[in-house]
């Protein structure tokens, strides 16, 4: 026990929680905390916008598996964190946000820079606190880290009144956290595991439907063993890219709105979905009533509220997927020794689809630069260890399709909330978490114009990320929908980004190296040049064809059975035996 200010107790608590880096901006209400931060061992990275701090914390957490931390002042500082915290909630990312609040006596008076950030974040934060007593700070911080990082991970906000930071307290960090209303269940019930194994051993068309939970649970190795034991097709959702190696013969790609024909069809035609840490999101299921109608469902997840939320589960297994899959391996081996179904016809069907409908694109005759080609070359040249962060839109889908992922925690994107502007700050956080790994942000020209200010932060703090702007002059995904569903009436999707701003000059102005490329024959040398620069952030303006579209596509609200491989072109189902 030692007497210190609430602010010092806050910083001592963060140190005790194991924080090594945080992203933030000071301001009036949080100012007392910034004095002890000045002399703390924690690295504080001064961002240029609080949204950048939040996404950076997310990127850091996604790459390291540790809790990401961001800090901001009251009012606008706090409300600028709302988008990244909502983003972290949708993608189950462990983030702790610290915000200053106006002094206790001023709360509720519409004081300068007052916003009820606890109330604002209540609908999506995993939990949040308003602390008005300095004695409560260490416990609130300890609980916040515990809640953020256990069970289904998520964002926790701790709002601290300025007077609580200024008053004196006796610092004592809790040695353990116990919450009556929160007891995450890590170990699966034995019966659920046995039921799941039995169901699998009696299925003839099983599919592993793998979600981001497998990455959160660090269960990739277990998944590989389980998948090989059964020898069934594996599909990885947008959040699960890298959870299972793309190069593995049992991998059939990403399911969903822009998934592969093989992955979408595998789910549709399956008689059993072995659902691991996925949540039957509408972007995966399409029209829910027509999704995988003949399939039974095993749903393994750590969040009980996901069971049966969108799709009935015949067998539910609650628990940490690392434990669940580890328990399922011997249980399945026993079940298979009694009854081993022949999955050969099923695999043959899926392999035929995979061969007939690979992801691809046609090279234009006019020599224009295609976005898919740029992204494919980025993946090939930078290699499978590289960490990629994407924004939201066409470039995100192409990145998920045309990069090859071999390892977990190498693919960061805003899957659930769909936050444009995620890529640059998330890549910054990722690079801080993995300084020895190449980090590429693949961004759209629309997204880039939302959060590129963090390149200044990167340039000044020795965070040499690389940014590939897939510049198609427009809000590409919205434009694609206008092409397909609004008779080509391009209302407000023309950004004119090839004219203004000049991205390489903008990059140079922010202390980065700016490059550009508009010819296919220059792509490789441009990427290699960017790869050779490691003492500064690099921005490459890839000026691509604006009419390229993302295919395959299941139009919103339609059935996965109606997947299109190109405009007005469905797969030739008659030639497939399904």
């Amino acid at each position, binding site marked *: 026990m030692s007497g210190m200010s609430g602010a010092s107790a806050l910083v001592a608590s963060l140190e005790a929680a194991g924080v090594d880096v945080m992203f933030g901006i000071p301001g009036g209400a949080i100012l007392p905390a910034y004095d002890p931060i000045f002399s703390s061992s924690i690295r504080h990275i001064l961002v240029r916008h609080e949204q950048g701090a939040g996404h950076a914390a997310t990127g850091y957490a996604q790459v390291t598996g540790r809790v990401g931390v961001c800090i901001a002042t009251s009012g606008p500082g706090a409300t600028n964190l709302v988008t990244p915290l909502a983003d972290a909630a949708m993608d189950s990312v462990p983030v702790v946000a610290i915000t200053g609040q106006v002094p206790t006596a001023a709360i509720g008076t519409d004081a300068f820079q007052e916003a009820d950030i606890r109330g604002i974040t209540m609908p999506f934060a995993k939990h949040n606190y308003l602390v008005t007593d300095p004695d409560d700070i260490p416990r609130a911080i300890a609980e916040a880290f515990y809640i953020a990082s256990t069970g289904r991970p998520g964002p926790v906000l701790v709002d601290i009144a300025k007077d609580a930071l200024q008053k004196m307290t006796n610092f004592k960090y809790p040695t353990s956290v116990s919450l009556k209303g929160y007891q995450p269940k890590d170990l699966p019930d034995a019966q659920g595991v046995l039921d799941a194994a039995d169901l699998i051993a009696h299925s003839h068309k099983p599919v592993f439907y793998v979600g981001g939970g497998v990455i959160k649970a660090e269960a990739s190795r277990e998944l590989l063993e389980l998948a090989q034991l059964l020898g069934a097709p594996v599909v990885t959702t947008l959040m699960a890219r890298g959870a299972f190696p793309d190069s593995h013969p049992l991998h059939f790609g990403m399911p969903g709105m822009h998934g592969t024909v093989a992955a979408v069809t595998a789910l549709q035609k399956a008689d059993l979905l072995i659902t691991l840490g996925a949540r039957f999101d509408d972007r995966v299921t399409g029209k829910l009533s027509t999704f995988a109608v003949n399939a039974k469902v095993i749903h393994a997840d750590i969040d009980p509220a996901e069971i049966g939320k969108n799709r009935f589960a015949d067998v539910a297994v*609650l628990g940490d997927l690392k434990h669940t899959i580890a328990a399922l391996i011997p249980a399945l081996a026993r079940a298979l020794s009694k009854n081993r179904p022949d999955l050969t016809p099923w695999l043959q069907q899926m392999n035929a689809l995979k061969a007939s409908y690979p992801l691809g694109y046609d090279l234009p005759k006019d020599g224009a630069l295609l976005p898919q080609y740029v992204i494919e070359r980025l993946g090939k040249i930078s290699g499978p260890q590289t960490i990629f962060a994407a924004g939201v839109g066409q470039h995100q889908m192409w990145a998920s399709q045309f990069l090859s992922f071999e390892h977990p925690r190498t693919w960061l994107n805003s899957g659930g909330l769909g936050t444009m502007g995620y890529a640059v700050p998330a890549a910054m956080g990722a690079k801080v978490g993995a300084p020895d790994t190449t980090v590429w942000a693949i961004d759209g020209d629309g997204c880039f114009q939302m959060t590129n200010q963090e390149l200044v932060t990167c340039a000044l703090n020795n965070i040499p990320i690389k940014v590939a702007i897939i510049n198609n002059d427009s809000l590409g995904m919205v434009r694609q929908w206008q092409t397909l569903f609004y008779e080509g009436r391009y209302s407000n999707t023309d950004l004119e980004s090839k004219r203004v701003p000049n991205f390489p000059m903008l990059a140079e102005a922010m202390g980065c190296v700016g490059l550009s490329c508009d010819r296919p024959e220059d792509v490789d040398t441009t990427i290699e040049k960017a790869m050779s620069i490691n003492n500064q952030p690099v921005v490459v303006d890839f000026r691509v064809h604006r009419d390229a579209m993302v295919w395959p596509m299941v139009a919103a609200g339609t059935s996965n059975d109606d997947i299109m491989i190109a405009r007005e072109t469905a797969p030739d189902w008659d030639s497939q035996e399904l």
Partner: protein
Amino acid sequence: MAQHTLEVIVENSPGVLARVAGLFARRAYNIERLSVGPTSNPETSKMDIVVNLDGHALEQVIAQLDKLINVIAIKEILPDSPQPTIHDTQPDYQN
């Protein structure tokens, strides 16, 4: 649709009512009746929430309610029983 009463034990701390009410609002569930009162333990309060939900939707409400950190226990008082049957949902909804 039958009316169900959920007896929800919560931490007696500021903002808990807003958390519970907000959950019902954003998940588009209607509250028929709500009362909040003290328990013998000053650290907890009891909410009686009457909802017009059945089966799957009711299970979802209970599961979502139990995700709130300040919610300690949920008991469902089954309708149409001569003696109200109480089953503690807590072991099934631990997270």
